């Protein structure tokens, strides 16, 4: 039971990360096509107040995994070693790029940090997709340790997941800009969102078709009884959200596209959960296999129960305070 609570908490932290850091990584990716300095200023200012808090969920997820599911932590990270290291370095670059960009003295320096933000965001998103794909396709484990080779994780499937996550985050980023900007930038963001949403749906279909082929448990879950009772609503909801998304976009709603993009992520995440449960490292390790002893879980749970609600409340407050459109030349860091 304790392991289930913790699995829920860590799953929640990862979802919070994907929903929150997703859009700000996406904004970074959009630097590739938004080249004017003033536009980039506005884009960054729209996420400046919140992005760091968003990223802390990644640390929470990693730290929590180490503490509560040490076996999963010890298997997943070595198995996906190059992808994880590349993701961390990309996040370092992007993170300091934010601060250094505004402190750079020369336009050249600024340009380089802009590139760091764009490349770092894209690489981090891509690597997160690789990690997702690598986890889904299963990790070979022997004697409680990763037993595969260097590049085992690098398959067509993981690359597909990598690109899918980049597209998905960029869609979130574009939708975020629709909500937080106006004028020309907002119009362009609408155009991007339209194209990206089509691509995103394509990738959802591709990944969903490929996943059940990876192993028989997944296909049983998705197409066998009683799994199908749980799984069939997922594609239906995805289609419904798509309807809402296009309606919102064509009626020039500000917030609807972002909420819909995030709803897609939640649905995909739910689908992922249905596929995996109760495994934390497919094909063999369940959350109970990976769990630390109850004493460790209980010890940390005390702190989590007190602190997580406070952190959530603060996050909500920060978003509330910074609501509204970002104007050119407006700074509120």
């Amino acid at each position, binding site marked *: 039971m304790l392991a289930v609570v913790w699995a829920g908490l860590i799953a929640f932290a990862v979802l919070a990360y994907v929903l929150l850091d997703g859009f700000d990584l996406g904004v970074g990716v959009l630097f590739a096509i938004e080249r004017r300095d003033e536009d980039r200023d506005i884009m960054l200012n729209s996420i*400046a*107040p*919140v992005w*760091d*808090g968003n990223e*802390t969920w990644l*640390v*929470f997820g*990693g*730290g929590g*995994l*180490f*503490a*509560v599911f*040490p*076996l999963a*932590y*010890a*298997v997943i*990270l*070595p198995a996906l*070693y*190059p992808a*994880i*290291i590349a993701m*961390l370095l990309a996040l*370092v*670059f992007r*993170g*300091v790029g*934010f*601060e*250094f960009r*505004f*402190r750079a003295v020369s336009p050249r320096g600024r340009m380089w940090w802009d590139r760091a933000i764009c490349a770092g965001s894209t690489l981090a998103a891509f690597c997160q997709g690789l990690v997702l794909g690598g986890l889904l396709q299963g990790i070979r484990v022997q004697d*409680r*340790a*990763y*037993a595969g080779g*260097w590049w085992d994780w690098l398959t067509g499937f993981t690359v597909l997941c990598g690109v899918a996550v980049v597209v998905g985050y960029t869609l979130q980023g574009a939708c975020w800009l629709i909500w937080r900007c106006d004028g020309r930038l907002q119009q362009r963001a609408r155009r991007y969102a339209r194209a990206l949403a089509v691509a995103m749906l394509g990738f959802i279909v591709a990944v969903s078709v490929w996943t059940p082929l990876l192993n028989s448990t997944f296909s049983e879950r998705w197409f066998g009884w009683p799994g199908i009772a749980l799984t069939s609503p997922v594609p239906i909801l995805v289609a419904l959200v798509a309807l809402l998304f296009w309606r919102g976009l064509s009626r020039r709603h500000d917030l609807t596209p972002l909420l819909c993009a995030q709803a897609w992520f939640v649905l995909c995440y739910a689908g992922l959960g249905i596929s995996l449960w109760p495994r934390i490292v497919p094909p063999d390790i369940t959350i109970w296999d990976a769990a*630390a*002893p109850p*004493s*460790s879980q209980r*010890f*940390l749970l005390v*702190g*989590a129960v007190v*602190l997580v609600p*406070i*952190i959530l409340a*603060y*996050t909500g*407050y*920060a978003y509330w305070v*910074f609501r509204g459109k970002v104007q050119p030349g*407006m*700074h*509120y*860091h």
Partner: protein
Amino acid sequence: MPGSDAVLMARAQFAFTIGFHIVLPAFTIGLASYLAVLEAMSLATGRQVYRDVFHYWLRVFAVVFGMGVVSGVVMAYEFGTNWARFADKAGPIVGPLMGYEVMTAFFLEAGFLGILLFGRQRVGRGVYFAATLLVAIGTLISAFWILAANSWMQTPQGYTMTPDGRFMPADWWQIIFNPSFPYRLVHMVIASYLSVAFVVGAVGAYHLRHDAQNQAARLMFSMAMWMAVVVAPIQILAGDQHGLNTRQYQPAKVAALEGDWETEPGTPLILFGMPNMAEERTNWAIAVPHLGALVLTHSWNGAVEGLKSFPPQDRPNSPVIFWAFRIMVGLGLLMAAIGVWAAWLRARGVLYQSRWLRYAVLAMAPSGFIALLSGWTVTEVGRQPFTVYGLLRTSDSASPIGVPGVEASLAALIVVYAIVFGTGLIFVLRLMRRPPTVGESGPQAGVPMRSAGITPAAALRDAP
């Protein structure tokens, strides 16, 4: 199982990343407490200069804290990428301790950092001081958890072991308050304070060179010199106690850092020399008879176990920690000497006039951090060849990752850290080069900062 080269590369990578990282939290721990003191003095005396110095260092604090967050993210994952078998075996104990550190840091960012950085105009003086104090306490709580984890790896207790060699927590109180923890915590916190004191002193000295009447620079210099004369000797005492504790629980570490091979009564103290692991002796040793016994056993004829009392495969690398230890002790003694010199000048009323003292303090600017890194080298390399002392070997802790992978990631880390933290250092130096002025303002508006964390809300209200 990874070969010894792979383990060595993994160790190099961890040493590199944590060596970079540790400097930043040490800086924030010391600086946060310094800020709290300045704010308290400002409240108590009402003098403008305390507030000016406060705001001057607050800007530095913001940048340093931000870089610490960045390098901390890497640390949170490195236990899994490079030390997977350690993570699996010791995770049930070390993991929750680190988990508490992560949550504390979160809480700190969430609650009070925003007020500290941007809340000056928006909250009352009492609330502002409380926030400053809580940030300082928060950094100390972070240190508490990290050092509890580290100390448990040095002097493990309160655990049971499963047949397949995993550590299970039996008693959390014993795990946290393990024998070396109180000593390490005190030693590390004081080290952070001294490191910051010497940076602050050097910045004061730098600006006094140009303007001997600059009140803020005088205050920085004066406060730093008080720290040097009072705290450096305390640190030497604390280090001595830590050493006695180490001798009790990790005698091989003490033998290696002393370069002692034989166990004999009235152990000499080797001042300088070159320990030779292959020939089991210390070459070119300059030794003072009986002094080793006096320092380590506090008795004239005491005997300290030599390295030969430990099987060769259980000995830490003596040359490395022998020299690291001497660098640390040498710098500590220098700091205390500078403190005494400054106190003597102060008594004569010429503290701010001595050019030589200013140069000396300027030269000593990084001394605290160098001493701190040397100290960590002593304690971490001295724990080898174990990760959990005496129980889990380093060679049984590493991830099943081959040499090329660890090498490539280490190379990438070196390049990225050099660019990122090199630039960060330039920004910090730029902040420090600017002389403190009357009516200093805090962190610059319009520049996003990482340390604003998840409560930049405080920054908003009077934005243009």
